């Protein structure tokens, strides 16, 4: 039995600013202190970064759209997300009379929890994280990440609204399409690095995997956009079509939970991309944690840039794209990576240009054969 005083005395051991990796002595006597510090740290950190992301997105997208963006609330509008949060907290919580009350209530909670869970296995710095060295880390992420769809469907179904139902149905149709190439892209990383642990994957990256496995990187990024319901795959909440999709009937704090979940999802997907493909916290001169944050914002900046530029695909086009374009190419990519790994086991630097050329040829060649043109088929 561990008393509070034990936690208090042992908490410094778990402090993440120390250089010595904390996870190496886990699970040991200071497990609970470690757990408490990192759980609290992750929840607070995620909330802070969500606000930073919201501010960043609005300020970053504004000049692209010939606007200024929020600039009234605090310096550079930095306090705008805080003001929005306060506003949304004070709003009336409206539950439709015909809604399935339980499902309607549970969905916003359920959408936020898996996102938070995924942060458990992310290394924010060398060995620093809740369980960064979990030996099934990537599998855990793929598994937990799929729960989100259940929450989206609950929200859409529980609201008893037709727009919400259309959005919910789209979410399920989308998930079966993009999860497969997403997992296959991640498997290529596992083959090269030889480990499922996120910590181990970062340690293995002498060359960032984005360069060594460009096709996996592109596919994972594309699928992450679908997972995040971001342009061009923002079909779930397509504003011009189904208004807000699955969360059309939510207001107040419940809506805020969806919003929070969405941006926390953006953080976690950016963090996964950084960890899997952009060599995690590694980088010269600056402290590792700063590098991690820089890369996090860079990836999210790309996502925002897409949002500013591209229109939305149609649901059947997304599925066609996933099944006929990304899935076969992911399998080919997997084959190539496997052969390369067998022949040249410690990763060779000259594989980088070779793989980039292979990727360019395959992507453009397959795109030439694959056209999405034409109307949708009647009664399909």
């Amino acid at each position, binding site marked *: 039995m561990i008393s509070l005083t034990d936690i208090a005395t042992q908490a410094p051991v778990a402090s993440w600013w120390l250089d010595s990796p904390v996870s190496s002595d886990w699970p040991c006597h200071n497990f609970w202190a470690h757990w408490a510090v990192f759980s609290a740290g992750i929840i607070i950190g995620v909330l802070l970064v969500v606000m930073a992301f919201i501010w960043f997105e609005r300020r970053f997208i504004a000049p*692209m*759209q*010939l*606007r200024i963006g929020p600039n009234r609330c605090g310096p550079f509008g930095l306090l705008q997300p805080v003001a929005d949060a306060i506003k949304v907290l004070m709003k009336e919580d409206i539950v439709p009379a015909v809604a399935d009350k339980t499902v309607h209530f549970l969905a916003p909670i359920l959408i936020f929890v898996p996102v938070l869970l995924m942060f458990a296995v992310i290394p924010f710095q060398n060995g620093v994280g809740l369980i960064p060295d979990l030996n099934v880390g990537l599998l855990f992420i793929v598994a937990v990440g799929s729960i989100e769809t259940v929450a989206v469907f609950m929200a859409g179904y529980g609201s008893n609204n*037709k*727009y919400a*139902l*259309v959005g919910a*149905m*789209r979410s399920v149709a989308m998930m079966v399409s993009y999860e497969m190439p997403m997992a296959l892209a991640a498997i290529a990383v596992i083959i090269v690095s030889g480990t499922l642990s996120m910590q181990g994957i970062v340690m293995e990256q002498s060359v960032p995997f984005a360069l060594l496995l460009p096709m996996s990187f592109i596919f994972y990024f594309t699928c992450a956009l679908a997972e995040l319901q971001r*342009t*061009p795959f*923002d*079909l779930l909440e*397509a*504003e*011009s*079509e*189904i*208004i807000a999709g699955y969360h059309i009937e939510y207001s107040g704090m419940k809506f805020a939970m969806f919003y929070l979940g969405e941006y926390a999802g953006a953080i976690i997907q950016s963090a996964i991309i950084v960890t899997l493909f952009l060599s995690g916290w590694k980088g010269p001169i600056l402290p590792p944690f700063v590098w991690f944050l820089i890369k996090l914002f860079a990836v999210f900046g790309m996502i925002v840039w897409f*949002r*500013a*530029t*591209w*229109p*939305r*695909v*149609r*649901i*059947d*086009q997304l599925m066609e794209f996933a099944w006929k374009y990304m899935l076969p190419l992911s399998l080919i990519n997997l084959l190539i990576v496997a052969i390369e790994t067998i022949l040249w086991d410690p990763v060779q630097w000259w594989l980088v240009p070779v793989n980039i050329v292979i990727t360019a040829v395959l992507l453009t060649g397959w795109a030439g054969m694959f*056209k*999405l*043109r*034409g*109307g*949708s088929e*009647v*009664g*399909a």
Partner: protein
Amino acid sequence: MVMKTELVTLNMGPHHPSTHGVFRMRVTLDGEVVVEMEPMFGYLHRGLEKLAEGRTYTQIIPFTDRLDYVSSMAGNLAYCVAVEKLAQVEVPERAEYIRVIICELQRMVNHLIAVGFFINDLGALQTPLQYMWREREKVVDLFEMQSGQRFLYNYMRIGGVSHDLAPEFIPALKKFLDDFIGYYEEFEDLLKGNEIIQSRTIGTGVISAEQAIDYAMSGPCLRATGVNWDLRRDDSYSIYDRFDFDVIVGENGDNWDRYRVRMGEIMQSHRIIRQALEQLEELSPGSVNAELPQLLRPPVGEAYAAIEAPKGEMGFYLVSDGSIAPYRWHCRAPDFVNLCALRDMVVGGKIADLIVTFGSIDICLASVDR
């Protein structure tokens, strides 16, 4: 296992972000597929046609601003042309040139906004639209120089226009025209080659030339189907026979063609304005308004005159009983007629195509419902 499926009836609008006003569609859906679509009009009906019967001919001009408020000048012109035909009024040449310049500017603006909202409906939220608003803002500034208004201009008069060109208008217009070419290329770079825009628009919302003629469609929607028909050339109202311009024609009558026809027409308008400016500068200054009595009493009779408004054939049918107010005032709104074909374009397509096709018709609810 056979799954039992059910059709869903969905009321889209009148409160919906992309119904461009208060249009309502009762859509029957089989999953994502549109099985039936029933348009419902009238939420913005203001009874303008009846109201006009109690106004003098000049007092009606502000009503025409409020028909298609995205291109008010075209509404002004269509009405004035109709009254001039009814009362046989000669318009001074200088006024004709001003009218052409203003109306072609209005066409550029209308098409920019139409394409911007169309791309917005495609899901590229805001960015292209904001670029196009920027250009519209410049034209609105030009119109403000002329009419003092930024939105509902009330600029045309029966037998001319209300004011001669402001001294700063022509330099500002020339600067706008010079800058516009670069911005136009920017729009084309951003949108034309985009694979998603192409895959979303090519082959969706198709209407054949025969159907389009049967529905009496007009404007870019008709020309996108391949029918080479433009009132500026084929009816030659005003002084359009003095300018050299092409009529842009599509092929398949799908969303892509409607978008391309509009983008093409923007540049043709640009050409017409350039020519009109050249010819206007050779013209000696003179009156911009015909000499008319303060209260116009057209002879007993009726007249229909139509112009090629940005959205299509905008016509006015007037019956005069010799008094100061029209006995009957009817407006042929192009977007209302074009909108009637919506059902045939969308049934069988996906719900996402429904929104895009609806956006591609380019309607203004104020003119549809009147």
